């Protein structure tokens, strides 16, 4: 009916099937889904920014622990070996397989670091006010690396390795291993607390208000 420019902000198209919806004001903990294909469109959650920020800061602490402390160790017939996450990837690069090391380094160290720092960079300005000049680059970065989030898959890999080695050696877990689990848990919770479409919408509300003030 009314399709003059101002109402465009009231529309949202399903990212998976392109059906147009008129936005509705949601109650707390509600999510809007596409009427045709069921994809999630946007959601509302009270204190989402605060929660996600707190979880991301905890994630940063876990990340620092995860790259500094020993990760796993094995001992077999008197021989012993402990490895750290970063050092083992460095050794893999230098002595065994540079390609494998680059892949594992990106998936387990570089992308998780971008994710946790990116989230913090997005959320701190949002926590203070709705204006986030320049932070859209972090939004895009965090969304781009989302399909490469493999930290929980790595944990399954650790379990498989453990099973494979139990017959030939004793395996022990270091502090970094527990920090890794902590990182996976808090970062999953942080991503669940926020919805990127809703975060973008906050930016727009700020800009529209500014526009009306002029």
């Amino acid at each position, binding site marked *: 009916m009314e399709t003059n420019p101002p109402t465009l902000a009231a529309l949202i198209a399903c*990212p998976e099937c392109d059906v147009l919806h008129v936005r509705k004001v949601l109650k707390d903990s509600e999510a809007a889904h596409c009427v045709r294909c069921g994809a999630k469109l946007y959601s509302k959650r009270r204190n989402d920014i605060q929660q996600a920020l707190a979880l991301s800061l905890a994630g940063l602490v876990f990340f620092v622990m995860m790259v500094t402390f020993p990760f796993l160790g094995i001992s077999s017939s008197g021989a012993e070996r402990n490895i750290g996450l970063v050092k083992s990837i460095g*050794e893999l690069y230098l002595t065994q397989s540079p390609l494998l090391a680059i*892949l594992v380094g990106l998936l387990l160290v570089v992308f998780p670091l971008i994710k946790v720092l990116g989230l913090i960079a997005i959320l701190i300005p949002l926590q203070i006010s709705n204006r986030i000049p320049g932070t859209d680059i972090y939004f895009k970065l965090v969304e781009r690396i989302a399909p490469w989030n493999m930290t929980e898959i790595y944990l399954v890999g650790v379990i498989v390795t453990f099973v494979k080695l139990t017959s030939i050696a004793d395996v022990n877990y270091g502090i970094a291993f527990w920090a890794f689990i902590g990182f996976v848990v808090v970062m999953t919770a942080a991503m669940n607390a926020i919805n990127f479409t809703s975060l973008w919408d906050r930016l727009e509300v700020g800009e529209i208000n500014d526009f009306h003030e002029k």
Partner: protein
Amino acid sequence: MISTALEEGLISCHACSLVANQEFRRCDRCGSILHKRKPTSLGSTWAYLLTAAGLYIPAMLLPVSTVNTLGLSETSTLMGSIISFAQSDAIPVAVVIFVASIVVPIFKILGLGYLLVSVQRGSKRGVLQRAKLYRFIEFVGRWSMVDVFVVALLVSLVQLGVFASIEPGPGIIAFAGVVVLTIFASNAFDPRLIWDAPNDGE
């Protein structure tokens, strides 16, 4: 009454979801270049998918790791390591690796191939099922990486001089390539294409 952004002469920003008129080149809110659909979606998806399928053959045939224990060295392929898990009574682990390394990649390659062919034929059948198939493919794809992580960990951990050491083989690099390429393929595919054909006919 359902209508799509495309039919209404509108375009949805892929980054921030702001709806704009189709004459806009860039998104007003986030500055991204606007596309009605992902550009060259079908061609890129095919390219990634066929490369992944080709690389799956060396990934299966070449050794993924070599275990050296006290002068003896033993190489094993992906399938070989699954069989040795099963024989050492670690059935759940064998099942996990079998599903992650064999079932998921093959399912993903065939599934995306089916989606591509059906979109190119303008098929109108089972649209919702195909949309769900795409969502499922996106969800399971990452889990194939398990075995790559296992080999990387084993190689780093088991370096006990003459007692035992493990070296990576070319097969695991090929397999990692398969997983990465299938993720590129599913990212390049635009699920909205599944829905476009039926709407044209109505």
